[in-house]
């Protein structure tokens, strides 16, 4: 099964990765605060049963928006610069100010590391996508979801 969604590219780029999906707000600090001592970044947010203990690094993180601490964008920026970040961020709703900051900071200040970010993919996207789906992101904000 294959479906295509179109969103708005916030940090344009291409990526191919497996989906990890949270249907509730992604608390960046609560989720990623242990990333630097983990071999691969895993979610440690006890309040998010959708992704608690699941791997985030190099995954296509599908989410409605981020919530919580205003360290959020800074943590995302550091994660990208340290190669500890998700492969891409895919928002069903309009991106929030913290995630937007992280995506733009990484895009403007990093020479090589990238974290393609797309928002406004719609509720239907988050209703459809499941953990393990193969995701392909294109420069223009097209997101292809493939399920074996």
């Amino acid at each position, binding site marked *: 099964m294959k479906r295509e969604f179109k969103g708005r590219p916030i940090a344009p780029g291409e990526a191919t990765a497996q989906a990890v999906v949270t249907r509730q707000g992604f608390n960046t600090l609560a989720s990623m605060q242990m990333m630097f001592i983990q071999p691969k970044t895993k979610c440690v947010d006890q309040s998010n049963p959708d992704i608690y203990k699941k791997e985030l690094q190099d995954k296509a993180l599908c989410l409605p928006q981020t919530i919580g601490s205003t360290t959020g964008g*800074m943590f995302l920026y550091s994660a990208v610069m340290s190669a500890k970040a998700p492969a891409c961020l895919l928002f069903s709703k309009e991106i929030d100010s913290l995630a937007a900051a992280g995506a733009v900071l990484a895009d403007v200040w990093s020479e090589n590391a990238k974290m393609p970010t797309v928002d406004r993919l719609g509720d239907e996207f988050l209703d459809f996508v499941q953990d393990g789906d193969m995701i392909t992101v294109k420069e223009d904000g097209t997101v292809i979801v493939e399920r074996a």
Partner: protein
Amino acid sequence: MILTAEQQSLLDGAKGATMSKIMQTLVRYGEIFGAEKMVPVTGEYGHLVLSFGLTFLGPVFDLYQKLIDEGCLSGQKFTCDPRPYDKNVPQSPVQKVAAKFIFGKQARYEKQLEKLGILNDDSYTCTCYLDEIGNTPKEGDVLSWAESSAVVYANSVLGARCNRNSGIIELFGSVAGFVPYFGLLTDEGRKADWIVELKTTKMPDAQILGSAIGMKVMEDVPYVKGLDKYLGTQLTDKAKTYLKDFGAATASNGAVGLYHIENLTPEAKTQGERLVKEDAKVYVIDDAELERVKNGYPCVWKNPDASPKLCFLGCPHMTLEQLIDWTVKIEQGLKASGREQVRIPTVFTASQGVMKEFARSQYASRLKKTGVVVSYICPLMFMDNPLWQHQPVITSSNKLRTYTTARFYSNDEILDIITGEGK
């Protein structure tokens, strides 16, 4: 976005490549949210969220060094979130050694903050807006702040205007002297998307009420009806303290940057229900709903029945009134249980300004006798350490619960646990 000649020249590189990149970042950040212009930062001081020299945040410190080297310093003095470590907080020798490694860049980072423009050495607190610190914006001031609990307080209780900026972005605004005009800076962005109808039988716990609203409305603006019945219609010290803790919970359990309390907060008093959007949704909160929310908090201790080993209160930092109230309550609790000191190591956290005022009062020695330690740290960052994971720490802060493995109890339950026979 339409820029002024000055802004365009900065973007074009008139003040170097680093300032140009700062402008690129601010312009792109603003354009995502439809900002059509930049507006001057009019608040006297900034406030930064990054206060911890976490070894692993090297990319951020490298970026800040670039700003310093290129002379891109803050145009306004700023306060900053609390320091992450205090050797006086009860901890094991192993935890002390680990903290030295984890916060290994603290000294270097504080030197960077001095160069970038921190106000003074007592400026490290999340409650910068309290009188004892003095970073108290005026109604209508445009701010370039981060720290979710401070932003929501400045917007809601003080009537200032600030978006929920991320760390780094807030410093960029203070360096450039202007911020993109969108969201909570605009009249339209300050209108309420939700009406919250409070129908509880008693004054709700600020931390649980804030949590319930945050989880429901996420980043929207709520207009709360019925809370003035308990808090009154004047922003007294008691009301402001309640709203400090309430707001921190809305911002950490959700992403609230502004709330209005009917008949109490500045814009609700002057504009009333004109602040509410026509299509606003309604959320009714009664006793059962608050109980449902509280019971939904998970406990991730290795042994859920473990005896607590540490209690933290003060996230956000406590006010002077809170320190005094808790001193009296703990004394009463200990008297009732026949104890001399708290039965669990307990730490109260507050700004250095508040700690100094408290130290001048008669209550400081009385609290010390009960065994409680007062510290200036950020308990959240202090616990941001694998050696604290799954330790049985308790708190009545919903923010601390959200970001750590600390277990949440109401203030009454905490008092019973630390002074009496509570579990």
